[in-house]
């Protein structure tokens, strides 16, 4: 065996404890990379089943691949931080050995080789273990997904084999091996290069000696914590590199923890927010065909087919026949017309809203899109009665609902109604102005939720008859699952001459699906955080104990000049507090920033207020203090069993 490999081997044996932690770090990084790519491969297979040959497939695949890349970059960076530190500590321990080797003629390359061989030996064991563990986790994950989602998948697409499959993709496996190997190699090579650069004589001379640049006196720490405090602060500053690795690792875990904690809580908030408060348990939506038509002047308008009142009525009847209840039917036509209203008839809230989105509220008139809606005859009659007007009247829905940028739900009556007649101007151009007299208005508290959820705008009018662009049936069925199948059949059998597409939603299933999905995502997110934190933990533990061990002699001297064991403990405790505070100073703001980014991403889907993730912050603060204290305390306890005399002598090289 080559000499360099031999030296690496003996170093691994000398410091068994750190070897194990480093190995664990390599195993965990490999595991995570394998899991991520394995799950991406499984998702690819799922996408293939769902969107076979569809245009969207490429986009979904790109999205999944992107997600895989982002996650693996996070993993790889974390691993390099952690592993390179481990190899750095190991190389530093052998500075003297390297000096002696150099003085008898070892080249830079040979010194580098000793450190790199160390990593190769560890990789040879760690990577296969990591791959196996990663595949097991992937298998477990796939089983978990299927357990939670298979029923729901099947109810969404009856008769199709919709599960997520465990995919043993050799591409993903090769990629994982290559990335893990590159990570380990790079982590070893960085400190190896540095160790090899130290001139032989310096290496021999500086071994065991600590270079301190400049002492900054921190009297405050000394005053408050006594001589133990001064010693703690000084040693933190001295071995800044050692502590930096710990601080970086701690900060990263804290930041990740807070970010993902915020992600999970915001996901939950999102589900609450998107909860639709209507009685119906099955909803059928029908959209007609729409196409974009260029108007020849650079703009465009949408051309669409319509749902005739007859067709809507026919379908409603069939639903009614099955359930015995009358479906709440709503036909909608938005964006066909616009209207110019005098600014003076807008309510103060409407003006506030307009001003908020950058409208010019000093102008005399304002443009609005008009949403026309029609209801099934029964519910239309109820609404007309409520408004106190005869059938055939046009009823203004004087209720607008939106979310302010800070996430509040904001509802108000937008118009001052006084029996106006609206002059509707078609978007598609032309001069044909349609006059729409408003016979009545119903305001806040009187509008059924079904209408509110159908898409109200500033100007929304219920008209008796309408050729709608899309139509919604809200059905309350005794047995939603059975009705779901029935509705499916009805929509399939109905001759939709104009084409278009339709969906049947079982709202109960939908809710279950969403909560299962969120539960699943939450599980994976926490699994990810837990594994990554574990990688950091290997580093934190090995650095802190290496640090304490390397100062064993210093501690023994302190004891021999009269520091009590308790004083020693106090000093180590203060060191852990100082480094915890430092990492929290970096990690907490970073985590809050991360949480805010998550918020921005989620806000694209729904608006709600950003809340500081206090729970996650508090938890991470407590965890950081507890962790550093436990590790330092443990390391110090091991020192206690040592003989002061032996330790001093060993350190002196006698």
């Amino acid at each position, binding site marked *: 065996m080559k000499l360099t490999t031999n030296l690496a081997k003996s170093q691994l044996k000398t410091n068994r404890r750190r070897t194990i932690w480093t190995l664990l770090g390599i195993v965990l990084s490999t595991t995570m990379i394998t899991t991520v790519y394995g799950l991406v491969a499984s998702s690819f297979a799922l996408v293939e089943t769902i969107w076979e040959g569809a245009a969207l497939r490429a986009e979904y695949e790109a999205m999944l691949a992107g997600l895989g890349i982002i996650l693996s970059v996070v993993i790889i960076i974390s691993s390099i931080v952690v592993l390179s530190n481990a190899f750095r500590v190991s190389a530093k321990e052998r500075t003297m050995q390297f000096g002696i080797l150099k003085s008898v003629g070892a080249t830079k390359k040979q010194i580098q080789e000793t450190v790199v061989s160390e990593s190769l030996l560890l990789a040879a064991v760690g990577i296969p273990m990591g791959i196996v563990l990663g595949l097991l986790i992937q298998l477990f994950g796939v089983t978990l997904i299927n357990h939670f989602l298979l029923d729901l998948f099947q109810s969404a697409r009856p008769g199709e084999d919709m599960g997520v499959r465990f995919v043993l993709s050799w591409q993903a496996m090769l990629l994982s091996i290559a990335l893990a190997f590159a990570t380990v190699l790079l982590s070893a090579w960085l400190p190896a290069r540095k160790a090899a650069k130290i001139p032989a004589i310096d290496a021999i001379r500086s071994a065991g000696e*600590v270079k301190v640049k400049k*002492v900054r006196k921190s009297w405050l720490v000394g005053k408050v914590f006594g001589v133990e405090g*001064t*010693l703690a602060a*000084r040693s933190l500053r001295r071995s800044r590199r050692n502590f930096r690795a710990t601080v970086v690792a701690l900060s990263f875990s804290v930041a990740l923890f807070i970010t993902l904690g915020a992600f999970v809580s915001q996901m939950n908030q999102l589900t609450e927010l998107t909860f639709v408060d209507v009685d119906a348990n099955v909803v059928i939506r029908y959209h007609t065909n729409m196409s974009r038509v260029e108007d020849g002047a650079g703009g465009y308008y949408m051309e669409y087919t319509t749902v005739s009142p007859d067709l809507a009525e026919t379908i409603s009847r069939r639903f009614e026949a099955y359930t015995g209840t009358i479906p709440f039917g709503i036909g909608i036509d938005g964006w066909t017309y616009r209207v110019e209203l005098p600014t003076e008839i807008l309510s103060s809230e409407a003006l506030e809203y307009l001003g908020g989105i950058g409208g010019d509220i000093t102008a005399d008139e304002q443009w609005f899109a008009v949403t026309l809606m029609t209801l099934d005859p029964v519910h239309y009659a109820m609404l007309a009665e409520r408004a106190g007007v005869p059938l055939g009247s046009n009823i203004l829905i004087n209720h607008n609902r939106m979310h302010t940028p800070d996430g509040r739900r904001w509802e108000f009556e937008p118009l001052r109604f006084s029996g106006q007649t609206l002059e509707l101007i078609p978007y598609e151009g032309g001069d044909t102005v349609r006059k729409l007299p408003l016979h009545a208005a119903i305001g806040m508290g009187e509008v059924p939720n079904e209408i509110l959820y159908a898409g109200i705008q500033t100007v929304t009018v219920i008209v008796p008859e309408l050729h709608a662009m899309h139509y919604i049936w809200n059905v309350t069925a005794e047995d939603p699952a059975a009705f779901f199948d029935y509705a499916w059949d009805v929509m399939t059998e109905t001759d939709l001459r104009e084409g278009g597409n339709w969906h049947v939603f079982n709202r109960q299933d939908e809710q279950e699906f969403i909560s299962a999905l969120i539960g699943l995502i939450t599980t994976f997110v926490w699994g990810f955080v837990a594994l990554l934190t574990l990688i950091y933990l290997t580093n934190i533990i090995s650095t802190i104990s290496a640090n304490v061990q390397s100062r064993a002699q210093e501690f023994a001297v302190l*004891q*021999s000049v*009269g520091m*009590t064991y*308790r004083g020693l403990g106090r000093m180590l405790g203060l060191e852990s507090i100082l480094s915890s505070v430092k990492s929290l100073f970096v990690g907490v703001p970073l985590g809050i920033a991360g949480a805010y980014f998550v918020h921005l991403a989620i806000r694209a889907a729904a608006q709600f207020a950003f809340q500081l993730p206090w729970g996650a912050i508090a938890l991470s603060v407590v965890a950081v203090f507890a962790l550093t204290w436990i590790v330092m305390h443990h390391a110090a306890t091991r020192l206690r069993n040592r003989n002061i005399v032996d330790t001093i002598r060993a350190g002196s090289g006698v």
Partner: protein
Amino acid sequence: MAILQVENLTKTYGKGDTIVTALDDVSFSVEKGEFVAIVGASGSGKSTLMHLIGGVDRPDAGRVVVDGNEIYQSNESELAIFRRRNIGIVYQFYNLIPTLTAEENIMLPCLLDNRKADPAKLNTILDTIGLSDRAEHLPSELSGGQQQRVSIGRALINDPAIILADEPTGNLDSKASREVMDLLKLSNKRYNQTLLVITHDEKIALEADRIITLSDGQILRDEAVR
């Protein structure tokens, strides 16, 4: 009255076949202000004796009485406090704390006692060891001889009952050795400081008032010089 009494001190290392008796029933006493050299071949038990007197190790049998206190009846914390107040230790390899300046290293036993060192006393010591202009330097910025003088300063700061020096010149060149010995002798003469020096060096031993020669863990000779 004797400042140090060592009575029937015995210490063994190892177990079974590998058992080594480092000290075998050693007894002697030292008067205040005496300068005693302890000599002997390596393995004769010098260092073990020194560590037992300094309270950093524990004997298997026997007593050590320093200034009327039997030190091995104390627990670990009490022993640490005893060390900082009553014993000044000087090691062969200086063993200064690398993050503390020369001045802070000297003050360390006081600081550990939560006391501020008397500035006049500190200045006298800095003056005596000839490092007034290097008080703010870190150990890494000092030569070996200077570091050893700092460690003597550290031993002197609390007016200890005994100064124990373990091969204090073993790592120094002859000029620095001379300076260190002069300093130790000065403290002995000027402050009537009790001094126990372990050494290999015959010349240094001859400067003492009394030489105790150890061999195989027993006192071979105990004689006054001149």
